[in-house]
Structures are given as C-alpha cells and as structure tokens.
C-alpha cells in the first residue's frame, strides 16, 4: 500500500506571533515540532505499512527548517520525505496550501491513501485535509478514529461524530484525517534515527512541479488572518427555577425587562 502522510511543522511554544504586514504566523526562530495530530497520521501509516507492506512518504510544505520535522518522520519509520519549500509558497492560506500539496501529490502520482492529522495546532482550521481531497478529486473521510479493514479498492473506517461514530466504506484512492483516539504514536528507533541523519530529503520548489504561480503563497490566498485573540469570557447565565409554567412566566418577564420583546 502506497501511503502519503501530510505533516506540518508547528511552533512548539504557544506564544505565536503574527507578522503585522502579511498577517500570517511568524514561524522562523521558534523551535518547531511535528503538529501533534500529524503524529497520529504517521503512526497509522506505519501500522498499515507493517501490516500490508508498501511505502510511506511524508510530505510537508514550509520553510527550509521544516526539513527537521521530515527527518523526525524518517526516524519513526517513514520511507521517504518531500519538502515543498519556496519563497513564493510563503503566506499560503488553507486553499493555497491544499492546491500546492495537491499539485505535488499529482507529481508523486502513485498512492492509495493520504493521511492527515485532523487539524494543526497553530491554524486549527481542519480544512487542508478535506480541501486537498477535493483538489485531487478523491473521496475523503475526516475525524477517523479507527480503520477496520483495508481492501484493494476500498477501506472501512469509523468516523467520530458528536455522540458515537459512523462506520463508513470509502473507495480508494482516498484521504482520511485522523483524531488522537486512533492510536498511540511510537517513539523513534535507533535505526530510524541513524537513517534520518543521512537520508536525502527531496526539496521541491516552484519550478519542480506543475503549478500556476498565482495560486500559491500569499498571492493565491483569498483569506488572511487579521487578528488572533482569546474571546472575552461571557458573563455567567442565570438558571430559572420552578415548574415549566413559572419558568416561562419568569422568562417572559425578563425578556420584557430587557426590552427584547
């Protein structure tokens, strides 16, 4: 089974800074880690490979230092790693990111399954996975908590929903995003770490695969982060007591008092 895992390097510190000009996150100078949700994606890919054979490729888009995260993925057992890195990719929103990843995956061409973490810790949108599937024209299931069965042309999954789960059959090739309930990520191995030290990480820039330059980076991003802030805590509500009739009466009075009705 050929599996592609999409990972992102995110800042370890929770103190994220925003560049006032571009309104995007400042990633340089902060220590980077693999987005925690992507660790579950890597683990699931490795487990599938151990069970079914095949190859796991890790794909990431980011500044040159994101190579560290790809090396870490190699140390866990990933076979190959590709970094999409180019100045013109910088400042991408979820749409431009999904487009860039999709074009890179088209160049890789061979794959049965793409696995992403459900969302990143810094952006928190949970959009890139599903958008990527749309760009590639393949099915996707988000919030997967378990893979039940893998066949040659389909996969049976459990998708987390608010109260419980749905069992879904998805045809392959396809994409899933995974939640933390799916597994417990492993620690690196010595063999993996040794390999990670010397292995070549492929770095693809804007000229290495087929892309339209106006669709990537800041230029290709219709959305911009203007401000990130913690919402103000709302005042505590009031719970009305008594039987239904008296509660309704109290509620009507209160709404009248505050001139809502």
């Amino acid at each position, binding site marked *: 089974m050929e599996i592609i895992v999409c990972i992102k390097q995110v800042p370890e510190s929770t103190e994220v800074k925003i560049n006032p000009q571009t309104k995007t996150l400042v990633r340089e100078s902060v220590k980077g880690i693999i987005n925690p949700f992507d660790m579950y994606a890597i683990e699931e890919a490795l487990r599938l490979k151990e069970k079914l054979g095949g190859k796991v490729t890790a794909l990431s888009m980011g500044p040159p230092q994101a190579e560290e995260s790809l090396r870490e993925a190699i140390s866990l057992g990933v076979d190959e790693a590709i970094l999409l890195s180019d100045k013109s990719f910088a400042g991408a929103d979820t749409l431009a990111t999904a487009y860039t990843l999709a074009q890179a995956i088209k160049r890789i061409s061979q794959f049965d399954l793409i696995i992403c973490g459900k969302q990143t810790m810094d952006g928190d949108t949970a959009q890139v996975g599903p958008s990527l599937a749309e760009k590639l024209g393949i099915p996707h299931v988000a919030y997967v908590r378990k893979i039940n069965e893998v066949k040659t042309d389909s996969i049976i999954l459990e998708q987390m929903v608010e109260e419980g789960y749905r069992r879904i059959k998805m045809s392959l090739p396809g994409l899933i995003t995974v939640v933390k309930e799916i597994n417990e990520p492993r*620690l690196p*191995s*010595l063999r993996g*770490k040794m390999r990670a030290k010397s292995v070549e990480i492929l770095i693809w820039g804007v000229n290495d695969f087929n892309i339209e330059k106006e669709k990537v980076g800041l230029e290709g991003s219709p959305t911009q982060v203007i401000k990130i802030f913690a919402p103000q805590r709302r005042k505590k509500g009031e719970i009305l007591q008594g039987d239904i009739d008296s509660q309704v009466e109290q509620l009507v009075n209160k709404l009248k008092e505050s001139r809502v009705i």
Partner: protein
Amino acid sequence: MNYFLTEEQEMIKNLARKITDEKVIPIRQELDEKEEFPWEVLKVLSQSDLMGLFIPPEYGGFGFGCFEMCLVIEELSRGCGGVAVTFAANALGAYPIFLFGNEEQKKKYLPDVARGKKICAFGLTEAEAGSDAAAIRTSAIKQGNEYILNGTKQWITNGGEADIYTVIALTDKSKGIRGASAFILEKGMDGFSFGKKEKKMGIRCSATRELVFEDCRVPQENLIGREGMGFLIAMKTLDMTRPGIGAQSVGIAQGAFEEALKYSRERKQFGQSISSFQAIQHMLADMATQIEAARALVYAVARFIDSGAKEFSRESAMAKLFASDIAMNVTTNAVQIMGGYGYMRDYPVEKMMRDAKITQIYEGTNQIQRNIIALSLIKEASSWR
C-alpha cells in the same frame, strides 16, 4: 560535563532519555507499588532497537559496546532503577552466548534477543553460593547426548519472565570451580520450573525468582564453550557487565539529585528557599561532585573495555564499587534534603534510596569488589621486585 560523545552516542543517549521521560517516569511509582514487570517499557525499548544495542550486526544488532550500554542504563536508571536492571540483566544473560557461544548458538539465540522478541536471564547465585560463587551445587550430569540438571538457582533477575537462561552448573563436582560449565536453557523445557517470586526492598518492578531444575534434560549443543569453562565464563561476563551497575548507580543518583535540587529551590522555610542555606548548598555541591566523579570513572572504564582491553576485572570492580557507594550516599542525602516529604511515597526519592541499596549488593557485593581490586593490586606488586 562534556564527555565528547560521538554523534551516534548522543543519539543513543537522547533516545534513552526520551523513553525514560515519556514511558518510564509516568509509570514508575505504579510499577513499584504493584511490583509489576515492565513489559510495556521493554516493548518500547525493542521497538526503539535498544535491546539489540550490544549484539553484533551479523545477528541483527548494532555492535555497540559497554560504553553505549552504560549510556542507556544510566538514562533508564534516572527514571527507574527497576526498569534499568531488567534491561541490564537481559544483556547479562545474553553476554555468555555472545562472548563464548559457538556460531550455531549465536545464530539461534541472538537475533531474537536483538529484536527484543526474547528476554534473557543469567543464573549463577544459589542459596548457599552468594559471594562464594564457587560453592554452587546445581549439577549437570552427562547422559548420552544430554546433560541432566538438578538444583535450584536463587534471586535470578528476569526469572520467570525471560525466555533464555544461561545457567552455571557443575559437570564435575570433584574439580570444584574447574568443574563448572555454562548452559543455555529455554523456558518450557521439561524439568525446568520457577520457584517463588521474591518481595524486595527496591527495584520492585524487576522480577527476582528461583529457577528450579528437576532432572531437566538439556541437549549437549546447549553447552557454552567447553566443560569446565563455566566459572571463567561467569566471571568474564560479570567483568563486562559491572560497569553497567556503575552506570545504574550514576543514573539513580542523578535522578535523586535532580529531585532534591528542584525541591530545594521551591521549598520555603524561615521565609526563604532552603537552597539559600549553606547547609543545603554544601550537600548539593557534594552530591553533584560525587556523581560527576562516579560518572567519569564509569565512562573511563567502559571506554577502556571497549578499547579491546584483555584484563579489566580491577577497573570494572572499581567502577561498580565507587558508583554504587555514591548512589547510596546521594540518594540518602536527597531524602534528607527533602525531609519529611522525601520520606513519603508521594515523592520519588524514597524509592530511589531503596533502589540504590541493591547496587552495593548485587553483581558482587562491594566487599567482594574490594577483594577483586586488592587481589589484582597484590598480584601486580608481586611482579615488581
């Protein structure tokens, strides 16, 4: 202090540290209280390739030496001495095969050990043969193509949990220690059973158990080396692994020291942190100095062994002796600095103090280590003239 580790050694140390921080420290208290064998940690160590560290590449390992083993044992011990000894005793059980076994034996047993699929143990001690290891009574009488083993081994680390056992037994009682031989036994052999599991003061997650042989038939191809080599094999194996106990001691001491240092900065008495009192400062300074001295000695001896030294009983004994005495001293003082809190089981230092005590006792008591060192000195002096 910078010990100028190679990039690979740094990698091994960091990996062991990560495993200790993420997989050992969170569960050490529970393992200790329940006296539960650390299978979960062994699984992680296998998956991380550390079980095969000392096994040569041709048998699926990495071919690292005593020094790299010490780095891992030290890091694990910083978290839990019981987990560390489980890891170290596996190597102790496998070393006789690796050092003295023939090609077939190595091919048969070492790849599974390297992958962590099988765990090893070493059986020498008996009820009446502790420091006086030459007093063992377990017998191995040759009958046709087999040896028939009878006797009981005591206090065997990894006993009952391990799959492969290297056992020292007498093939010729009339020759004393020159009549001892080493055998490879496997769990499940007829006539091989396990006696009682010991309840210990410290290193409580490690398994310590009797091995019982009742007319246990062992194929002759399981003899390691030749008949009569058993005692030599045991002593050479222990020379190899003693620095590991030194490393365990350094790790336990380091763990306790870190707890005490952290606590001394947080704990306030008389309106200030207790770390501002000179009485505490001097204790901390002594502890750190002792640990560094012990570490430097253990590392130096391990590197000496790995350099290809032929005779290193004295140095190996020194590393174990010095570091384990330091571990007892440092952990006792860590409890002292933390006072009543240190004595409570809610804090980890009382466990570290319990764990430290065994390092002065097993793999040869520190009194026996002094004998080894003194005999070596006197032997050397006899050639001076």
